[in-house]
């Protein structure tokens, strides 16, 4: 072990001691952590550069009816439109680098002090190039996007699947306030409140439906790594954004197999 370790140190120091010349434009920048960077490289992808896009967006004002369950379309549209603007800029950045895909994408929303109801939508990822030209692009010839971490991306590719794109659905929903008589009816009792259950069901269904529609448009076989989030943002207790995001995938070959994992017990906590 020590001899091998010393050899690595010796090689590394030799590498750092020799004068280095490289042609311009062949250097990369990666937004991945070391734990993500190494599996992505081993999956046969070469990082090209960090890509990002953002949009500062004024989200309109829409009030729900006090006692009614309803989607607030103005807000739903704003959330999807602004995210799409940020994503489109990131994809344009990636196309400029000649990338086959963007991995480890992060989507953030931050309400900044630029004004009331103004939020910044950001998409950041790492553009990569695959081992075979054009194999990894989507059917429209665009680079794919993946919401998976580097480790999950590696596992997916090794299992014979390719990501085709990030898919998402958003629904901003106003959950009705309870009328006084309704509150009184269930006060102190163990009972379901059907009106609220229905509201949450509806909102999630709308968001998931939109995500599925996006996945079929990409001709995906399925969606993996789906996360369903309830984001209250700044709209108070009764208005919530139901946001669902995942990565649409397609099989690379018909006979893909998944390696049987070995079991380990890590000694860390």
């Amino acid at each position, binding site marked *: 072990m020590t001899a091998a370790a010393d050899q690595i140190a010796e090689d590394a120091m030799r590498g*750092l001691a020799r004068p280095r010349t490289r042609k311009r434009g062949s250097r990369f920048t990666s937004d991945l*952590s070391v734990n993500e960077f*190494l599996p992505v490289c081993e999956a046969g992808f070469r990082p090209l550069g960090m890509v990002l896009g953002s949009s500062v967006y004024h989200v309109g004002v829409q009030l729900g009816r006090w006692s009614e369950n309803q989607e607030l379309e103005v807000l739903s549209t704003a959330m999807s439109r602004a995210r799409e603007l940020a994503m489109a800029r990131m994809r344009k950045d990636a196309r400029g680098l000649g990338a086959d895909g963007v991995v480890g994408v992060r989507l953030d929303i931050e309400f900044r002090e630029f004004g009331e109801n103004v939020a910044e939508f950001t998409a950041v990822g790492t553009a990569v190039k695959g081992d075979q030209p054009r194999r990894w692009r989507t059917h429209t010839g665009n680079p794919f996007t993946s919401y998976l971490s580097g480790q999950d991306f590696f596992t997916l590719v090794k299992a014979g699947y390719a990501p085709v794109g990030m898919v998402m659905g958003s629904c901003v929903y106003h959950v009705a306030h309870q009328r006084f008589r309704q509150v009184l009816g269930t006060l102190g009792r163990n009972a379901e409140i059907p009106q609220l259950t229905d509201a949450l069901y509806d909102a999630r269904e709308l968001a998931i439906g939109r995500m599925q529609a996006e996945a079929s448009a990409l001709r995906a076989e399925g969606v993996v790594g789906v996360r369903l989030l309830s984001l209250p943002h700044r709209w108070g207790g009764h208005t919530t954004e139901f946001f669902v995001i995942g990565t649409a995938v397609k099989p690379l070959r018909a006979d893909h197999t998944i390696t049987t994992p070995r079991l380990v017990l890590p000694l860390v906590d």
Partner: protein
Amino acid sequence: MPELPPAVVERRNRAARSGVRTSLLSVPSAAGIEAVGLEPVGEVMGCAVRSAPRRHPMPYSGRRWEVMRQHGKYYDAYSRPYLDGMRTGYNSVLARIRREAKTLGADGIVGVQLTRTALDGGNEFVAMGTAVRARSKVRPTSLFTTELAGSDVAKLMLAGWAPMRLQWAAAAHAIDTHYNTLIIGTRNSLRASNFELDAHTKLINDVRADARQEFDRMTEAAHADGGIVSDLTLSTWEPGEGVTAAIAVVCGTAVARFRRTDSAPADTLTVMPLWRRGEC
């Protein structure tokens, strides 16, 4: 400050006399760097307290219409003093930590933490890390520095990559925002509608792009093969009435490929941990 401060010289002499090697490494990091032939030689620090850069370089003066007509143009006179203050602060502490590590005969510094604390009327910039020396006959041309933890350095080196240099890159711009504020504030019909704020969007996209470009230029100048970004931050402030400024910071390590052969023990094992955070 051309010489090392007396406190540092004293600490170095004391360490030399006692032979004790201190480090800031966690146990996994200490084991990690051992596996790639690096030994800790001592913890090192660079510190500088500097007066706070002025965030309001000049009062806002009339000719508002003139300024409004030019909206979209950058008013960097507002943001530059702040950016320059940050850059000088971080660069000086990075230079100091390198100088201290050099006197210990180190080949590099791992796990460098850069922090800034606001003090009364100033800022304290601190860089702390662990100086390491390689069990090697060859010495690098210049000391390597990285903010990556020892365990990450070990993983990189096992896969044939060596860290070269910690890079702190930033960009800042300022815009006039009277125009935007007027739009949102005065027209009620617009309050209800969805629209993108062009000037702010351009400001934010540009500062991020410029910071990233500076990072790329630094990677190029270091003759590295690539850069691994560990932190990308953006903050905004108002340096004057009706002026919005944004600063973007990209921090990461330039890396060099020293071995491309398959012999690097980097085979990934598909394992399923029998423990997971949050599960018993």
